[in-house]
């Protein structure tokens, strides 16, 4: 088991390395560069900038240097968006903001999505089920900028004399978190509810449930003790990468609610060709994603003892 985990960690490290390499060369292949502007700085100034950030050297030298710095944990400094500010500090400042919103968004998505899914499965075909289906289909198909913009309009002063939440994000003020968390968690909630409903239905049809019923167990116990555990597997599979994506910030929600999070910054860095920031944020997200997948693999065992890492399934 320990060996298997080590092997997995090795693969994860290799994946992150591959991401670093691909991102490095892809960002350089895109036309444009960080110092392009409508202004017309003299060549001496452009030369000085390229030299300062090492962009005057051949690409393979830059690549080797970048990997070397990476091994020492040095992500470099922003060359454009926040001139000379260390990328690690940028991530350090912005990730907690995104993570807090992402955490609460997923929390309510899971806490509400799973029980609603179970309920729908239990009341299959009845009014509750149909109503939930409508809400969930809506949630899965509505783009988040529509949800976010509608909420902003409806609750932040768009209707005269009706302003429940602030329009400007204030870190630490709970009212600033309500709408972003709702918008960010709406899609996962609906997705999770649908997912749980489907797998719960599947589980309820299994023989061991019939056995449990035959033994005369109470419905609640059958649902939550026996069926839910199996029904949770697909939800867990979905949650693994989703946690990484959500915690690293949603671009749309961060833009609409002006949240100083990582998601918005990630997109800005690409359009301004801020190479070190693109690389730093991509690597951060990639490592997080790989780590979450690893964690999900381990959690599978907790939920389903039949799954054993590195062993043939019994």
């Amino acid at each position, binding site marked *: 088991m320990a060996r298997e985990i080590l092997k997995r960690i090795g693969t994860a490290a290799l994946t992150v390395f591959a991401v670093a390499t691909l991102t490095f060369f892809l960002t350089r292949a*895109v*036309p*444009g*560069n960080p110092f*392009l*502007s*409508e*202004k*017309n*700085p*003299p*060549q*001496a*100034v*452009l*030369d*000085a900038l390229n030299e*300062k950030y090492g962009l005057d050297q051949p690409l393979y030298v830059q690549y080797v240097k970048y990997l070397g710095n990476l091994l020492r944990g040095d992500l470099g*400094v922003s060359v*454009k*968006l*926040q*001139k*000379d*500010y260390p990328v690690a500090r940028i991530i350090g*400042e*912005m990730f907690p903001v995104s993570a*807090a919103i992402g*955490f*609460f968004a997923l929390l309510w998505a*899971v*806490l509400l999505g799973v029980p609603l899914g179970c309920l729908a499965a239990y009341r299959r075909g009845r009014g509750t089920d149909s109503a939930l289906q409508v809400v969930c289909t809506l949630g899965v198909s509505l783009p988040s900028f529509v949800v976010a*913009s509608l909420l*902003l309009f409806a609750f*932040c*002063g*768009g209707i005269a004399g009706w*302003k429940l939440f602030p*329009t*400007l*994000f*204030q*870190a*630490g*003020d709970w009212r600033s978190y309500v709408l972003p968390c709702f918008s960010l968690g709406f899609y996962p909630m609906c997705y999770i509810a649908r997912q749980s409903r489907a797998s719960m239905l599947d589980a309820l049809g299994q023989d061991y449930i019939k056995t449990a019923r035959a033994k005369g167990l109470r419905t609640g116990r059958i649902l939550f003790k026996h069926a839910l*555990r199996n029904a*949770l597997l697909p939800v867990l599979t979905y949650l693994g990468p989703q946690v990484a994506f959500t915690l690293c910030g949603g671009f749309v929600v961060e*833009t*609409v*609610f*002006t949240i*100083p999070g990582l998601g*918005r*910054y990630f997109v*800005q860095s690409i*359009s*301004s060709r801020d190479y070190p920031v693109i690389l730093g944020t991509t690597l951060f997200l990639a490592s997080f994603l790989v780590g979450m997948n690893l964690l999900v693999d381990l959690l599978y065992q*907790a*939920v389903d*003892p039949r799954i054993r890492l590195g062993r043939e399934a019994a």
Partner: protein
Amino acid sequence: MNRVRLPAGVLAGALVLGALAGCGGGEIGAGSSGGLDLRVCIASEPATLDPAKNSTLDGSILAQHLFEGLMRWENSGEAVEGARGLYRARLAPGQAQRYEKTVHDDGAVTYTFTLREGLRWSDGAPLTAGDFVYAWRRLADPATAADYCYLIDMVSGYEAVNSGAAEPAALGVSAPDDRTFVAELTYDCPYFLEICAFPATLPVREDVVEADPDGWTHDAATYLSNGPYRLAQWRHNSRIVLERNPSYYAAGGLGPETITFQLMDDAAAILSAYRSGDLDFIKSVPVDEIPALLANGDLSVVDQVGTYYVSYNTQRAPFDDWRVRKAFTLAMDSRYLVERVTQTGQIPANAFVPYGVPDADPEGEDFRTVGGGYWAAPDTPEQYAANVAEAQALLAQAGYPGGEGFPVVVYSYNNDPSHEAIAQALQQQWQSALGVTVTLESGDWSAFLADRKAGNYQIARNAWVADYSDPCCFLDLWRSGGGNNDAQYANPDYDALIDAAKAAADPAERMALLHRAEDLLIGEDWVLGPIYFYTQTYLLAPDLDGVFYTPLGNFFFGEAARI
């Protein structure tokens, strides 16, 4: 672990929520006692707060609240007609109390500035003329890599310093004593005093900059300034809070207690924040909201010195023929574009240099009024029809009667709803007026810019907004081989006119040469297709007054007050 512990997750959530609630409050600018806490939104996060390295208008607005140069923009008290709570700015001595200008026999000029008495930095330390010498040398030094270093190219020794041939100390600025700053200019530059108020020439503190050249702007503790306000807080991608600088010589006359610059980029979110009372002043609004905001008088429209135009690639067929370029220029219905597409009072252009740029006599008519137009702007449908008829004749002369045989051409622009709306209208106008086929191609800003600079296009969206009030700012762009010569225009006669204008000692002669350069650029070679002269828009809360501005795009909030 053989059970999924959901309750543990809930507990953890509750803990984090508690922690978040605990750290609320105590935010700067969240409402200090009595005074005005102004909240504005100009743009998103500035790339830098280093005045020398800044190259954006929003960064420039911030710098001019935090610092003060030898000269400054002050409120003239002259209200702008039809605009809410807004006044015109005028140039006045700033940190300098007075200046003397000496013109030498060889055309060189010496400016001697005498600083005010008792000037101090925001940490209380005295400010001396040496601080200006340091800042100006730093600006010229190529190692600083300042985008705007060329703004002081009139100072003697600049070329040698900026090309790396001489040490920064060779720049023609000096401080004979703590209150005297001397600048030696190679010629009598008419806009030099305006440059003395430009952000790039603002003083910076040598000790903090040298201690951490790349990091001093990132921390409010080391961000020392000398202007009316000082940096209280910078929360990246969120807001920048300025507070009154008690060391400023006129701190008593300041309006707002604090000025918070909210860093936002979503126009709809910005407007929501303004409507809900969370912002007092905003600049950008969603395009589709403009008619309603104009109708109810909320949106104010004021001049800006800038031109929106298309540039033709003069080195590639079919736009290597001036008749084709002129035909395309005449076929644009700029009146339709400003009335139906942009909708904010822009002026249809019939030349390149916009209104608001002074001519030889600063008090007299401006450059545009003196120069007149190069064709009749399509103010009426009849005029547009006449322009189209002329355009069709030109295209026929060029060998494409009725657009026959004309290749499919591509119009390039950068992704943006407003540029796209203009692109679609232009496409339709060109196609129906000239019988040609135009396709549209949009790209992201950086890729678009790279292609446009390299001449890798046929027709491209373009725009230029003045940095200082001089026609040279617009005409210098089109010299052969210039870095911003997107049209790839190369005409030795044009280069000679610009060179002669730059060397001219007599202001009248200089302006005459610049008019001739524009005649050549637009009137004869039709290198560019000007569409409209810019305006800028803003919304100011109805209970506020006392904001002042320059048509160069600077807004000043230091005297704003509640009515």
